[in-house]
């Protein structure tokens, strides 16, 4: 299955205008400075926001088409979506969170083993570390057998060591999944490590030169924008 999307949306500081596609078993990493529209793109893929104009087609199924007035609800898109910060349900323990909509509860155990959080299954989200919460969030997303996995800076709130560990676990996991994965980050190292394909997004548009400019540190007017410093810092670790 292949996900392809094109979006146009007028935002406060710029106009978003982008199109891309990502086949099964592929991880596309969307990278770019913060505030460049990456999360908006992910939210539009999930159906939580609508573009002014555009199309989302998954396999043969139309999820969104502004001309034919088709807009499939988030509920029906059958996605896995891991948010930037923890959105586990605070009233449930980790196991119940992961099993919240699981098709097969046995798989939750397997996933918990894989992510090494089985000993924490009875703990509530506020009683475990940030990395453990994000592991659980990934289990929750996978237990539903998503057709498309969206990861929006899932590790950005974690410390460097934890992030590196999770990054490696995710890379191993990627090999076992058959759905397309779209991963958002502003960390160039993470992108290079995980991506089959990289989509640099700057001010709502595809910008193929952005990575090169960032790595080579070519001094130019566009590079010295506010958020462009972050990936450079990321190169340190």
């Amino acid at each position, binding site marked *: 299955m292949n996900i392809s999307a094109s979006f146009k949306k007028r935002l406060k500081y710029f106009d978003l205008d982008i199109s891309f596609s990502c086949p099964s078993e592929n991880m596309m990493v969307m990278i770019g400075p913060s505030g460049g529209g990456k999360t908006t793109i992910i939210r539009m893929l999930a159906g939580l926001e609508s573009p002014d104009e555009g199309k989302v087609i998954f396999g043969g199924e139309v999820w969104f088409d502004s001309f034919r007035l088709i807009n499939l*609800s988030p509920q029906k*898109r059958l996605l896995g979506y891991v948010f930037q910060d923890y959105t586990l349900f605070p009233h449930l323990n980790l196991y119940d969170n992961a099993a919240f909509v699981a098709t097969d509860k046995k798989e939750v155990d397997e996933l918990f083993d894989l992510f090494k959080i089985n000993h924490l299954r009875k703990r509530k989200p506020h009683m475990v570390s940030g990395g453990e919460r994000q592991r659980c969030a990934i289990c929750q997303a996978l237990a539903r057998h998503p057709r498309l996995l969206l990861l929006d800076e899932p590790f950005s709130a974690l410390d460097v060591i934890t992030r590196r560990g999770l990054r490696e676990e995710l890379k191993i996991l990627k090999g076992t999944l058959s759905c397309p994965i779209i991963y958002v980050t502003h960390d160039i190292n993470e992108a290079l490590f995980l991506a089959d394909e990289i989509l640099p997004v700057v001010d709502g548009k595809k910008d193929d030169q952005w990575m090169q400019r960032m790595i080579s540190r070519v001094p130019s007017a566009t590079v010295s924008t506010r958020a462009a410093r972050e990936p450079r810092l990321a190169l340190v670790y």
Partner: protein
Amino acid sequence: MDYLAFYVTLKLALVTTFILIVLAAPIAYVLAYLRFPGKSLLEAFIYLPMALPPTAIGFYLLIVMGPKGFVGRAWETITGGSLLFTFIGITIASIVYSIPFAVQPMKYAFAKIDRRLLEAAYVLGLSKRAAFLRVVIPNSLGGLAAAAVLVFLHSIGAFGVLLMVGGSIPGETKVASIAIYEAVETMNYRAAGMIALSFIPISYAFLLLINKLNKDSHI
């Protein structure tokens, strides 16, 4: 001591609390999450019983529930009896009287829930209704408990509105607060004092309960 009046009071308070929690939850949801024109007008209207003199509410209820009012007439065609001076009549009155005290704490509890939790639930495939039952309600138990206890205490103390619609029929509509008033009117200060005194431990115990519930449900 007028135990019968106490029995009616407690029965009325329990029934009112139960019905109001179920009834107020969807109203609070609409006020907390939806945007529509005229919302502030609707909200003010729902809170109106809090700002009106109880006898004024009682007066309007008397008109509406009376044999010439539309509710009273409808009731009469269905059941053949009158709605005024019955337990059901004062229950309706008590519900109207206490609506703001149920809606307001629930609305604040719902509004406090992170919108992203709801989005996460939608993405996981939950309908709005399922998300409300499985995510919103379990995460606002403190607010629900607060609403329940407030409504309970508020309906224990109802007087004017019940007297207007229900009068004082022992075992049916004569509640403890009315019993106090009647005892004083007949110069029976001892009986009035006994009933009044019994209110203190009940109300105090419930206030302690509200504190405990709020602590326990704190996540």
